[in-house]
């Protein structure tokens, strides 16, 4: 499988050439956002309030990490992805509002997100679910945190990463969706599974 190294801010052309099943590694700045951070970011966008970070060309990570407060700053302990489908109701608007280039998460996303990715130029990178230490290992440092009032998992953690990955491109900017492809073949296997179980 082809492997790509991306550095933030990522240019539109660099994500448009990626295809489903490619492997990518990201170096630069990424930030976490879960359900509540998505909701608040979109509220702020509506109110013309700038986000705590300029998101253009960055990667958003669906993640509620474990972090430890140090004398100065924060240490990333564990940072695996959370289930992305919960953000499906926000993500198309989020991509269009903030021009982020990579959405990182697990479990894939739906057609609304894929359509926005095609339109704006963005991809979905699947990070191995639960591989939180592998992810934390790629975090060079936490540069800032905002919205801590939402709690540690829901806050917006901004971090500098080095070769964050491997991420499997699971939705590309042509709108192709690996999870849907797998679902189609799983659907074809349903009867075989029934038969093996004696149904």
């Amino acid at each position: 499988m082809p492997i790509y190294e991306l550095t933030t801010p990522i240019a539109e052309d660099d994500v448009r050439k990626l295809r489903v099943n490619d492997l990518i590694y990201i170096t630069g700045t990424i930030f976490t956002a879960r359900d509540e951070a998505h909701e608040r970011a979109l509220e702020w966008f509506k109110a013309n309030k700038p986000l705590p970070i300029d998101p253009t060309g960055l990667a958003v990570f669906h993640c509620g990490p474990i972090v430890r407060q140090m004398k100065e700053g924060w240490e990333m302990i564990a940072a695996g992805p959370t289930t992305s489908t919960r953000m499906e109701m926000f993500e198309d608007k989020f991509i269009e509002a903030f021009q982020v280039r990579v959405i990182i998460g697990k479990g894939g996303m739906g057609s609304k997100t894929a359509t926005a990715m095609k339109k704006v130029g963005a991809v979905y990178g699947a990070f191995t679910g639960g591989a939180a230490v592998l992810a934390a290992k790629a975090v060079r440092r936490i540069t800032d945190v905002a919205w801590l009032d939402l709690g540690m998992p829901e806050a917006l953690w901004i971090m500098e990463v080095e070769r964050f990955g491997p991420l499997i491109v699971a939705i590309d900017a042509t709108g192709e969706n690996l999870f849907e492809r797998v679902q189609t073949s799983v659907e074809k296997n349903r009867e075989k599974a029934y038969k093996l179980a004696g149904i």
Partner: protein
Amino acid sequence: MRASELEDVFVTLLRLAVTDLPQDVVNSLEQALKLESNSTAQSQLEAIIENIKLARQRSIPMCQDTGIQIFYLTVGSKFPLISEIPQILENAVRKGTQEIPLRPNTVNPLFHKNPGDNTGRYIPWINWKIVKGNDLQITAFPKGGGSENVCQLRMLTPGQGLKGMKQFVIDAVIETGAKACPPIIIGIGIGGGADICMKLAKEQLLRPVGQRHPDQRIADMEEELLEAINKTGIGPMGLGGDTTSLDVHIDFAMRHPASFPVGLAVQCWAARRASATITSEGRVEFTSHRVE
């Protein structure tokens, strides 16, 4: 046996559970990687195995979702401190949250507040069994949200019976897809009632991977369902492949003539559990992990 000693053992159990997978789970993941034919699936299993090794080496949680804290206790009626165990467990969870650390995961469902220490109303949750004897057997079972969200209950009719159970399980796994971080372990509880079958289903997740039910007929059913589920091609993380489930465990209780309840509990690959036996004199043996 002092309360503070017991608390230390409980904190150790929490630490072992979230930082180090039992060897039966690791072995089955390594075996799956050997047999896997899909290259994307191989990349996911490799990442999982690498992650487990890193977590073990560094003694930090393998997954950022360190779960809701659940304990299974089998207590001898002569074990001292029985009535103090809930308070000691709560203290241990608070301490573990700071020291290990665990992600503060308890949220008030009505009023939204997170106390920040993994405790609160009914949590940590304790499953009690009181037996004759002097010892305490305890398992820490931190349960992550991703796999908990896809657990299901189905009240089948007796006419639908076992075939209906199998179809329910296969359909539920297909519907679940990538959500529960496959490869998953599946626990199935049949009979009893709505709550009883769910409880049985979840208890099956404590059984080591590869350990079959002692009743051969049920053991055969477990193997049959495992093969069927792995035929779906969902694969690790739902990205396609041969490895969707590491094991299927089934148990049952007697049912009402009119009911056929089936509970389905799902566990992600990070099948975290840690067990110990503590005698009334305070001797401790860790039974799920090798402890120096």
